[in-house]
């Protein structure tokens, strides 16, 4: 085996076989569920994808207007709207709200955007108790780990590992029964909800027209966060806008089916403001934080289509590279194909560090084929590879043969033909000698090369034409 210089390739090679197979099979199962759900329920799911793509692109093209419209609508609903340019500002806003409310405990629903801002460690550093309530995210939190998938955060863990973690944290005696483990989490987290002051969520969609956020969960944790606490804080990316409430059913239809193969997620909440006056439980205050954190830069770039993403995870489920590497290989909050585009862009200064991510793709296009908003992910990966080259990011070129010499030959037919003739030498050179070229060596580590037959078709054609073509 040639030396594995690409970090993602290296990560894959060092992944234990059990984890790899678990990730691959779970991803495959989810991909199949998605296909079944969409093609059983609709005549032409691709028409839906195109329509949803158009609605999202329209919202992005007109984002400033929609953001202002949304802000006004939320304020009318009694929601306090905040704006944060980066993660630090967003976290500071949360801390400030908590201090003002005399709060010390927060229960948190799964939200990728708060992973981006590293909210939980920030709050803990400031003496707050912050508990993740999604089962998978809870396991990630107590293990000091990171999610490896945006929908199924512990796809890289098995039941025995979860059992050991729960035993260690005192949730109960060791068991590896997923049912009993889930019950243990239910008992433990229930008290956390009841004791908490603040419920923290993200949003799947922000409806500009009505000033509501739409939130989906299967477990019911977001709903519990908003039933047991007195303050609700939602942190959302500025790109999450959907223009009209009547657009929501289209997106819910696609989101549930693309993510988990469900026509509709179990709990779908339309939240627009603090609890009503007659309601006995629930938040007296609702805060919405609009977070930029690099999104306005992406909107101005030639990769703006990535902002259409609705975080369903279908692209990672179908991705042959993700299936071999799992999510941690991507070294960022967003793994898989969407992450390979989004992560290097979200932090401008960090681009060179993540410039290898767009290379971790065979450009097979499976991601775009399943994307509910038809993001041309392979095109965006190509643009980022070009960006990497232009900015001389070394990670763009690791282990990749330079092609300028080849390009020179490919624009000069005489040189090209000479190359074809010279290539015949390859057949008589012992293959071991070819391996001085790192690319040839890498190729030959697992595959044979066919015999070189450069120019043979051209010679045949000459003779064939002399004969007068087909007989």
């Amino acid at each position: 085996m040639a030396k594995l210089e690409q970090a993602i390739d290296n990560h894959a090679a060092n992944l234990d076989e059990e984890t790899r197979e678990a990730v691959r099979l779970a991803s495959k199962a989810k991909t199949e569920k998605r296909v079944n759900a969409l093609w059983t329920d609709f005549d032409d799911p691709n028409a839906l994808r195109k329509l949803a793509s158009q609605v999202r692109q329209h919202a992005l093209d007109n984002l400033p207007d929609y953001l202002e419209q949304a802000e006004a609508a939320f304020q009318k609903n009694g929601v306090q709207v905040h704006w944060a340019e980066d993660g630090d500002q967003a976290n500071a806003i949360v801390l400030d709200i908590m201090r003002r409310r005399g709060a010390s405990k927060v229960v948190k629903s799964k939200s990728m955007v708060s992973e981006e801002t590293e909210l939980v460690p920030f709050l803990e550093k400031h003496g707050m108790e912050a508990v993740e309530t999604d089962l998978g995210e809870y396991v990630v939190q107590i293990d000091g780990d990171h999610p490896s998938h945006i929908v199924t955060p512990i796809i890289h863990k098995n039941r025995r590992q979860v059992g050991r973690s729960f035993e260690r944290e005192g949730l109960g005696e060791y068991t590896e029964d997923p049912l009993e483990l889930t019950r243990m989490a239910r008992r433990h987290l229930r008290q956390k909800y009841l004791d908490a002051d603040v419920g923290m969520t993200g949003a799947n969609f922000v409806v500009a027209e009505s000033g509501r956020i739409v939130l989906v969960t299967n477990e019911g944790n977001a709903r519990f966060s908003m039933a047991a606490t007195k303050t609700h804080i939602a942190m959302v990316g500025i790109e999450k806008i959907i223009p009209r409430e009547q657009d929501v059913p289209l997106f819910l239809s696609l989101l549930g089916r693309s993510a988990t193969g469900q026509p509709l997620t179990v709990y779908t909440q339309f939240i627009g403001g603090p609890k009503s006056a007659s309601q006995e439980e629930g938040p007296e205050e609702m805060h919405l934080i609009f977070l930029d954190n690099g999104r306005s830069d992406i909107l101005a770039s030639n990769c703006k289509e990535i902002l259409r993403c609705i975080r369903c995870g279908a692209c990672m489920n179908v991705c042959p590279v993700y299936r071999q590497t799992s999510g941690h290989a991507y070294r960022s909050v967003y793994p898989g194909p969407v992450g390979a585009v989004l992560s290097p862009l979200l932090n401008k200064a960090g681009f060179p560090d993540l410039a290898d991510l767009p290379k971790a793709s065979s450009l097979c296009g499976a991601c775009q084929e399943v994307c509910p908003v038809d993001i041309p992910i392979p095109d965006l990966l190509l643009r980022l590879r070009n960006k990497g080259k232009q900015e001389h990011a070394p990670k763009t070129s690791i282990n990749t043969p330079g092609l300028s010499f080849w390009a020179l030959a490919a624009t000069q037919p005489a040189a090209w033909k000479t190359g074809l003739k010279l290539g015949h030498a390859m057949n008589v050179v012992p293959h071991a000698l070819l391996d001085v070229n790192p690319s040839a060596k890498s190729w030959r580590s697992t595959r044979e090369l066919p015999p070189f037959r450069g120019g043979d078709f051209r010679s045949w054609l000459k003779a064939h034409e002399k004969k007068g073509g087909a007989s």
Partner: protein
Amino acid sequence: MIQPTAKGKRIKFMMTCLCDAFYADVAQASYEVLEHLGCEIEVPAGQTCCGQPALNSGEWESARKVVRHTVKTFGGEEPVVIPSGSCAAMTRHGAILGFESEPDLDEVEGLARRSWELCEYIVQGLGIDSWPGRFDGKVALHRSCHTRGTKVYESAVTLLSSIEGLELVEVGELEQCCGFGGTFSVSFPYVSKKMGQLKVEHLTEKRPNYVASLDMACMLHFGGMMDRQGVKTPRLHVSQILKKALENR
């Protein structure tokens, strides 16, 4: 992806660089199939490569030079027929991406509208939906990734399934890539190998007599892997099956 519109039997043939260097027999079979259909074929001698390797590596300046050469070499109005879904995807989509803000985008789009993959040209371009002759055996057909968003794969299925004696066998996880991806195969050798192994398993699972491909690039990879693993199932480009069927009329 631009869909081709150029029609007619006066055509230009793009042999592809892989056939030029390694797979002369595939180029020959494709040529003879087109000859059988009564096409008047020109093979521009100045042709080299479509430019995809440079585009995929992010070297767009180099890619544009090669694309410009290809556009010039294949100038005219005739359909350009290519025995590769991947090279056709380059001329129809990738090249356009690389020329988005270039003054000569029009010319690149012109070539895009004339570019057909071989099977697609036969079925969609010429309106032929059955193939004469006989070919005995079970065939596993690889759906090459760069045929997504086109009618290439279904055209090949139409032709192959119409051939007497030929049985197409089911291939699992058809949407999954074989792991080639050009320079991906050498810069990510481990992941590429794992992908290739799965592809070889799926392609040979139903014990076909032949494995067929629409792209020699994919075949270079999974075929090279089969050779290394000692998997003996013979491999053919679709054009070679069409040609063999013609010989058994």
